[in-house]
């Protein structure tokens, strides 16, 4: 695995020697990586490789067995509860299934962090929430409840809620999971659009190699609980590893040219 030099300025995420276990089984071992400001960083691996668990760890929801997670140069698992609470306001998390509050409408879901974490008046909050919904092409569904949304829409609403506080770091679990190619490509394009508009960093967990190659500045591939490869898409492609070669072989066979063209069209001018 290439050992890449840390970014010149302080990384927004600094994970050092992370070991995680689930149900007594070690699923991640001695994993280290950094994410630079403004970077889209993809974490890849097969189903059950521990990608989502790693994202939960980055979000401060599941402490690692060993190792440290530093966000904004602060060790999140050594922070007092109050400071961790303040730090969370700088992070947005979009969950795989959306995790939208089922009792609230789309607009109420998106407004929620602003309503409870700021002193803004309701009219300003409504405008800010609408801006984010418009950015994600969701203005027309703002009155619907989560149960009335498709999987792709729920993911986009979850992303709108994650970015409504203008976070510096967005963690996104499986944007392409459960979506058809067109919806997945649309969501990928929205990630790039948001990064360009908000200058925030993204850590995206995905099992879709084509999606990772389309949006990520760097990719971390996890296999058998360890980092198999870490680098830019071009560096990953150049890796001399049969498992990676197999992944690319499958993708090249499956990736339709129109999807690439579609992505190019959507991201054109960002």
């Amino acid at each position, binding site marked *: 695995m290439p050992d890449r030099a840390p970014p010149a300025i302080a990384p927004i995420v600094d994970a050092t020697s992370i070991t995680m276990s689930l149900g007594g089984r070690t699923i991640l071992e001695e994993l280290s990586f950094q994410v630079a400001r403004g970077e889209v960083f993809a974490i890849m691996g097969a189903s059950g490789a521990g990608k989502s668990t790693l994202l*939960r760890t980055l*979000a*401060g*929801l599941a402490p690692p067995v060993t190792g440290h997670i530093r966000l904004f140069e602060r060790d999140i698992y050594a922070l007092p509860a109050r400071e961790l*609470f*303040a730090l*969370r*306001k700088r*992070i*947005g*998390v979009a*969950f*795989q*299934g959306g*995790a*939208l*509050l*089922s009792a609230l409408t789309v607009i109420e879901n998106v407004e*929620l*962090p602003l309503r*409870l*974490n700021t002193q803004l008046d309701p009219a300003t909050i409504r405008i800010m929430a609408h801006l984010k919904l418009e950015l994600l092409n969701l203005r027309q569904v703002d009155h619907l409840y989560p149960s009335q949304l498709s999987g792709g829409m729920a993911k986009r609403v*979850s992303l709108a*809620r994650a970015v409504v*506080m203008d976070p510096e770091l967005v963690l996104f679990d499986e944007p392409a999971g459960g979506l058809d190619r067109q919806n997945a490509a649309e969501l990928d394009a929205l990630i790039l659009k948001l990064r360009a508009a908000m200058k925030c960093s993204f850590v995206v967990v995905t099992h879709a190699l084509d999606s990772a190659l389309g949006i990520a500045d760097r990719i971390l591939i996890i296999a058998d609980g360890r980092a198999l490869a870490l680098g830019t898409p071009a560096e990953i492609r150049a890796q001399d590893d049969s498992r990676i070669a197999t992944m690319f072989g499958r993708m090249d066979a499956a990736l339709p040219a129109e999807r690439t063209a579609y992505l190019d069209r959507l991201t054109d001018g960002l």
Partner: protein
Amino acid sequence: MVCDGRSMNPLRYLHQRIAGLGAMGLFLIHVLRVLPAPAARAGMLAKQIVHIGSRSMGLMLIAGACVGAMLSVQLFDTLTRFGSPSMLGAAVAMSLIRELGPVLAALIVLGRAGSMLTAEIAGMRASQQIDALTCMAIDPLAYLMVPRLLACVVSLPLLTALFDVAGLAGGALVSVLSFSGSASLFIDSAANGIVADDIRMGLTKSLVFAALIAWICLGKGYLGTALRGTEDVSRVSADAVVIASIAILGTDYLLSALMS
């Protein structure tokens, strides 16, 4: 020892139970600590009172009237044997206000709203809604638990009062229709037979039962960290109702013994 379909070492089972109790204790402490938190807005509280309280009102009226009527029938016989059928109103009122009203109203609220609370919170846990709140820097205890706890504590004593009134009305009706008694005699007897201590005991019991229902039902839903789907959610809800029922009956005995 069998747990979740697999046999389990008794020591491990005991360890899990003790750890579970400890987690429930910590959950209560954390909820009480955030009780005055601003996330517990008046709007949320009102919504939960409607959810938990007002939708149980019809049930309370029907159940209360039936229990009052039953008490009238049972107690009239006994009182007649001792030559004091005129005490029927007082006997029905005391039974309802001190004992049956708080316990039965609590069990009805538990069956209707308690199981719903557990399923709702456990469902939110399973679908990562609680994690999402945490990630949004919103304390799920303050946002979800406090309004529900307060709604239980506000609603149950009022529902118990409704149950008692319906019970007295049911008792008076049976007294008039079945035993040719007088409604005013029944009401006078009830009014004279009840003292402030009876009402205090009934109120204390319903407040404690409300706190127990909220604590157990919300705690079981919130602490179900390994919930995978609807089957787990329904299992946790059933567990919560069983545990809360036993807790209500056990606490009823303790409070009766302490306050009598």
